[in-house]
């Protein structure tokens, strides 16, 4: 177990977006979170990555309580994430977007910048090397010098993965990584996610594409109205009465 939430709760005014959720992200596995629209999945990620302060409950990462740690410090501990919509800088190249991902592992300051110290030069080379390494990992070496605005949706997703990977994470949280890409490309992303896990990076992903989840996830949690209604292997989830009901009763899944 790499990361654990205990009675995690998030309230927005009268709405309970995440309600008393106990969940553990297993080390080296692909952990999935599914649930109807508005179930609180993204909010759950926002709690883990430090964007929202929980109303109640705890987040434990490698035995350490990180509930009150700011988002950037969690990134330093090794928690990376991607967003439901990619936040890349469209006017810049893929490489330039990804280089900054390794910044948190460097320490050069304004002083180093103005005097172009050895440390700065070394760290710049290090960031660039890291960026090329992760771009190769996600299969974007050829697109490194393209402007983000000109690459496909699927390539943007890969670039967002690369940026997250450049932070040297232990766990990567992927929010609907395959949304908005066609079935062929979805398969490609699927392979990439499996490759990340094989590489030793723990994956936790939110996805609406059931086929993909059932194929690659080791463990699934189902959220509905902020509550965990089921947890188990894909096999168990597929045959779970409550889950079937939640889905048939609620909004249909893609």
């Amino acid at each position, binding site marked *: 177990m790499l990361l654990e939430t205990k009675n995690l709760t998030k309230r927005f005014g009268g709405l309970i977006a995440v309600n008393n959720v106990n969940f553990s992200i297993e080390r080296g596995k692909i952990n999935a979170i599914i649930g109807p629209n508005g179930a609180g999945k993204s909010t759950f990620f926002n709690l883990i990555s430090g964007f929202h302060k929980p109303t109640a409950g705890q987040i434990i990462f490698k035995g350490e309580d990180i509930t009150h740690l700011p988002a*950037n410090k969690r990134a330093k501990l090794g928690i990376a994430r991607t967003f439901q919509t990619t936040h890349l800088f469209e006017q810049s190249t893929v490489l330039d977007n990804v*280089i900054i991902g390794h910044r948190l592992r460097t320490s050069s300051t304004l002083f180093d910048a103005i005097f172009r110290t050895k440390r700065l030069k070394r760290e710049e080379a290090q960031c660039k090397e890291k960026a090329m390494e992760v771009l190769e990992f996600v299969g974007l070496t*050829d697109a490194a010098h393209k402007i983000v605005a000109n690459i496909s949706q699927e390539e943007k997703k890969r670039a967002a993965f690369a940026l997250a990977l450049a932070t040297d994470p232990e766990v990567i949280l992927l929010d609907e990584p395959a949304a908005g890409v066609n079935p062929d490309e979805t398969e490609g992303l699927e392979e990439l996610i499996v490759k990340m896990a094989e590489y030793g990076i723990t994956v936790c992903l939110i996805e609406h594409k059931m086929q993909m989840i059932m194929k690659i996830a080791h463990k699934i949690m189902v959220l509905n109205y902020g509550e965990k209604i089921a947890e188990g292997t894909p096999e168990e989830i597929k045959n779970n009465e409550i889950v079937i009901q939640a889905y048939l009763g609620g909004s249909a899944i893609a």
Partner: protein
Amino acid sequence: MIAVLKQKKIAALAILFALAFPLLIPNNYYLHMMTLSFIWMIAVYGLNLLAGYTGYLSLAHAGFFAIGAYTLAILTVKAGLNFWLAFFLSCVISSFIGFLVGLVALRTKEHFFAIYTLCVGYIIYLVIDKWDNLTGGVRGFIGIPSPANIGPISFQTPVSQYYLVLFFLLLVVFVMYRIVYSLTGRTYIAIRNSEELALTIGISTMKDKLVSFVLSIFFTSLAGALYASFIRFLGPDIGYISVMFDLLIFLLVGGIGTMSGPVVGTLLMTSISQQLQFLQDYRMLIFGPILTLLVIFYPRGVVGGVIHWKTKRTENNRDSRVGKISSHSSNEKQVKEG
């Protein structure tokens, strides 16, 4: 790579021209105008670091320009400090006030930040205007010394003042260049792009924003101090909103978030202003629409427009060259998968 070399060539030519300017055009009026626009450029570079690269549009910068100017005036005339010590201190004091303002201001974003800093700028103006004993209020502040000699070099003549201001401008451009093209600059740009994303990749955004804010104010108050010693008279108007809008217009026309935007915009706008001087305040009737069109069609100003046009051209060239190679590699992929 070729683009960078070309850029360096253009920059070198521009510097050469600036160095030769007093010899080419030995006219005191033009020299004065040029020196003054260099001072504005320094202030605009300060604004550019924050608004252009870090994404925080401050409307308090005219106020800090004025703080730099008035602090120099007060420290030299009233406190009788050595000129260069006063010069240095006025930048530091202004930056320190900026630091305090930044601690609060940077907790807001976008239009809230703009409005907050607009208020700060206005308060600074009011303080200068009303604090008669210290600033001379509406009567203004006279008798500010011109820069003191450095060793054998004196700064009494227009030409020597021109070179002094040019020296500071080049220094600021150099430091800006170093910052923008470093990990620190990339960090600022990441914050501008998306503060949320910057946080998730481990950037301590508050710290970086604060450094950028303070440094940006340092540059702008440096310009203010130069202004005070060059014009040698100050009125509260230099901290007024209209100066802020001048700075902003220079930056927007030249190209916000570009290296050469402040130079291009300031030169362009000050010379157009000169040409249209007979229109007095009606100039705004012409500037307004032009500026609106510019912001709509060239959000990154003249320089941004040129860069955009160039990258498009090189991209097209590259695409036609790379086209063959990439179709080749996709064939390979199909073979593997098949």
